[in-house]
C-alpha cells in the first residue's frame, strides 16, 4: 500500500471524526463522495461496481452500494491484510462463510460508536456498565463486543484496562457463561451501582435478555433509577421469533423501569456506526419506540430491490447505508434488511427472505440452515 494512500486514508478518518464532533466544514455529501472516490481508486471490486453502474460518483445517491454478501465472499478493504488491527466477523452457521470487516485502525470506530452510544444511553455523567455476554478474548472478533468494551471504557469511570485493576469494583462485567446469565454477578453489579448512586447500563443481545427473563422466573430484579438496558438483535436468524415489544414490556416489568429505558440498538458488522431508539429519559437522542435513529454521519435510505432506487416515502425497501465511518471498506452498503423511513429514523421490518423457492429448488438462504 502506497504511503500516499495511507495518508489519504488517515486524513479522511480525521475528517470523519471532526464531522462527527460537529466541527467540520465539509458537508455529509462532500465527505461521502471523497470517500467513495478514494475507494474507487484503491479497491478493484468497488471500481468495477462503479463502472458497471455507470456512476460518475457525483452525488451520494450515485454511489453504488456494496452488497453485504460481498463481505462473505471477498476482502472489502483498501488496505492489505497485514495492516489489519481487528477483523470483525459476522455471526454464521457452520455451512455459512462468515463475513469479515477488517479495520486498519479502531480510532474512528471507537469515536463514532461512543458518540452514538453517548446520545442514546447516557443521561448522567457516568454509569456502571455490564454486558450479558461472555468475556471476550483478544483480539475481539465481534464488533458488538468490541463496542461493549468501549462503552465500559468510556462510560464507566471504574473501568481500567486488564492488568491494572486497582480501580475495578468488586463485580464482574461480563455476565454470561455456559449456564446463562451470572445472576450472582449481576446482583453484585446492581448493589454496587445502588451504593455508588449511579445508573446501571446493561448491554445485551435480545437473546441473552430472554434467557435472563427465563432464569429470573418472574421474580422482579429492580435496577437503580435511570438505569438503561440496551438490547440488540444478535444472531439474526434466531431473533426472528423474539418480539421486541414483548421483550421491552417484560424487561421493564422485571427491572421496574419505564419501558423507554429499554433501548434498542441496530448495528451491523459491515458498518462502523449504529442506530438507536431515542426513548430513554434524559438522553439527547429523541424518538418514538420502534424507530431507530441514525447519527449525522450515517444516512439510511430504503431502496427498491430491483433498481436500488429510493422508494416512495412510507414504503418498505431494502436498507441502503452510507456510513462515513467506513473509510477503508465500503462507504455505501446494501443489506437484505427491510426498513421503512419514519420520524427521522427507520423501522426494522425483518430480512428480505429472497425469492420463494418454486419447484423443488432450495431458497438461497436455506443453505444456511445447516444439516439436519
Amino acid at each position: 500500500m502506497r504511503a500516499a494512500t495511507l495518508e489519504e486514508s488517515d486524513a479522511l478518518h480525521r475528517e470523519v471524526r471532526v464531522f462527527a464532533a460537529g466541527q467540520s466544514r465539509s458537508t455529509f455529501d462532500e465527505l461521502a463522495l471523497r470517500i467513495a472516490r478514494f475507494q474507487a481508486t484503491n479497491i478493484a471490486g468497488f471500481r468495477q461496481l462503479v463502472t458497471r453502474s455507470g456512476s460518475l460518483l457525483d452525488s451520494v445517491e450515485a454511489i453504488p452500494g456494496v452488497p453485504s454478501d460481498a463481505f462473505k465472499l471477498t476482502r472489502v478493504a483498501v488496505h492489505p491484510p497485514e495492516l489489519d488491527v481487528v477483523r470483525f466477523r459476522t455471526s454464521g452457521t457452520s455451512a455459512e462463510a462468515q463475513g469479515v470487516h477488517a479495520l486498519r485502525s479502531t480510532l474512528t470506530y471507537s469515536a463514532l460508536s461512543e458518540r452514538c452510544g453517548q446520545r442514546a444511553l447516557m443521561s448522567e455523567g457516568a454509569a456502571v456498565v455490564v454486558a450479558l455476554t461472555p468475556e471476550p478474548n483478544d483480539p475481539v472478533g465481534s464488533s458488538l463486543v468490541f463496542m461493549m468494551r468501549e462503552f465500559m471504557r468510556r462510560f464507566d469511570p471504574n473501568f481500567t484496562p486488564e492488568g491494572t485493576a486497582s480501580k475495578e469494583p468488586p463485580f464482574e462485567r461480563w455476565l454470561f457463561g455456559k449456564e446463562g446469565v451470572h445472576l450472582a454477578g449481576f446482583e453484585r453489579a446492581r448493589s454496587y451501582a445502588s451504593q455508588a448512586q449511579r445508573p446501571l447500563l446493561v448491554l445485551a443481545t435480545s437473546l441473552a435478555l430472554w434467557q435472563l427473563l427465563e432464569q429470573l422466573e418472574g421474580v422482579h430484579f429492580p435496577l437503580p433509577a435511570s438505569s438503561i438496558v440496551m438490547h440488540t438483535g444478535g444472531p439474526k436468524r434466531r431473533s426472528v421469533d423474539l418480539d421486541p415489544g414483548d421483550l421491552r414490556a417484560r424487561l421493564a416489568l422485571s427491572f421496574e423501569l419505564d419501558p423507554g429505558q429499554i433501548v434498542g440498538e441496530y448495528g451491523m458488522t459491515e458498518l462502523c456506526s449504529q442506530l438507536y431508539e431515542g426513548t430513554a429519559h434524559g438522553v439527547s437522542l429523541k424518538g418514538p419506540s420502534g424507530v431507530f435513529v441514525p447519527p449525522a454521519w450515517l444516512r439510511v435510505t430504503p431502496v427498491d430491490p430491483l433498481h436500488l432506487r429510493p422508494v416512495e416515502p412510507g414504503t418498505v425497501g431494502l436498507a441502503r447505508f452510507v456510513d462515513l465511518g467506513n473509510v477503508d471498506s465500503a462507504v455505501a452498503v446494501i443489506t437484505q434488511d427491510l426498513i421503512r423511513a419514519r420520524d427521522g429514523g427507520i423501522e426494522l421490518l425483518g430480512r428480505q427472505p429472497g425469492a420463494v423457492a418454486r419447484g423443488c429448488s432450495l431458497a438461497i438462504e436455506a443453505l444456511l440452515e445447516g444439516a439436519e
Partner: protein
Amino acid sequence: MTPQERVRALVAAAREVADKDSPVGKRVRARWLETTGLSREGIELAVENSLEISPSEAEIEQLITSVPTSKRAWVLLSANVFVASHRALALALAGSERVLVRVSRRDPVLTAALFEACPGLFEITSELMPARGDVFWAYGKKDTLRTVQANLPVGVQFLGHGPGAGAALLELSDATVEEMQTQAQGLVLDTVLFEQRGCLSPRVVLVTGSTKEVNRFAECVVAELTSLGKRVPRGELSLDEQADLVRFCDTLTYVGKVFETEAGIVALSQSASLSALTPVGRAIHIQHVEEPILPLARIGHVLTSVGFFGSETLRSQLVRTLPKARVTALGEMQRPPFDGPVDLRQR
C-alpha cells in the same frame, strides 16, 4: 398387475403425454405455459430431456427393488418441477397395488394427464387417510414434511423428499478446448432446464485448473448460454427472483467478473466461500478454487446431484465425501436413471 406392468403402463402414459401431437400432449402444453413460468421452448426442452419415457428394463427392475412394498400407498405431491410427478407415481406404483394421490393445487397438470392417459392405474384423492401397513410418500418443504410425518398413524412407513440443490465440479487441468466446450454445453443444459428451479439444478459450480483454463471455460459457458438462450428463451421470473439476480450481479461484480447476457448471467470468482446458493433463473457462478471437496462437503446436506468432469481420483474422493449425491456427467444432471428416487438423501 405386477409391479413391472404397473410401471410400464405409467411410462406408456407418459409417452403419450410427451407426444406433442397427441390430444393430451397438446392440452398439457397449453396448461404448462400457465403453470410453469417456462417459455414454450423451455417446456419442450424439459419434456425431451427430463420426462422419463424410455427407461430400460434394468432401470425398471432397479426402481422396483428400491422401494418398500405395501398393499396401499399414498402420495402427497407438491408443486415440484413439472415433470416430477411421473417418477413420484412410478415409485409408489412399483411398491403398491393401490396408489392414492393428492395432487398439488399449483401444479396438477401432469398428474391429471397421466390419470387421463391411463385410467384406473392410480386414484386421485383430496383426503389422505393412511393406516397401519401403508406406505406414505410425501414431497414438499421441510416444514411440511415434518408436520405430515408427525401426524401419521403408527405403523405407516413415511418416505419424505424435500428440496435440494445440485452442484458441478470440473477439474480443468489439461482439458482441451473441445472438452471445455462439451462440458460447458452440458452445464448450460443442466442450468437452463427448469430455469434452475429443480432440486437437481446446479446452483454451485466449482472449478480447478489454471487461471487461463478457467477463464477459457468461462468464455465457453458464456458462448453456450448465449447459443442455447437463442433457441430456448428464458421463462418468466418473479420480482423476487429478479431482485435476487440483481443482488447476485452486484455482489459478483465486486467479488470477481460478471458476464451479463440476454440469456442469463455467468460470474467468475476466486472465492471458495459457499455462503449462498446462486439464485435461480440462469445464473452460473464459476468459482475457481484450489480444493473443491471441502466446500462441497460443508453443503453436502443439501446436495442431491453433482455434475462432474475430471480424474478418477477426484471422482472417488467426491463419491466418498458425498455418498448420497448422484454423481453424473454434465448435461445428465437433470435426467438421472429411472432407478429410484432422484434424491437419494433419504436412503
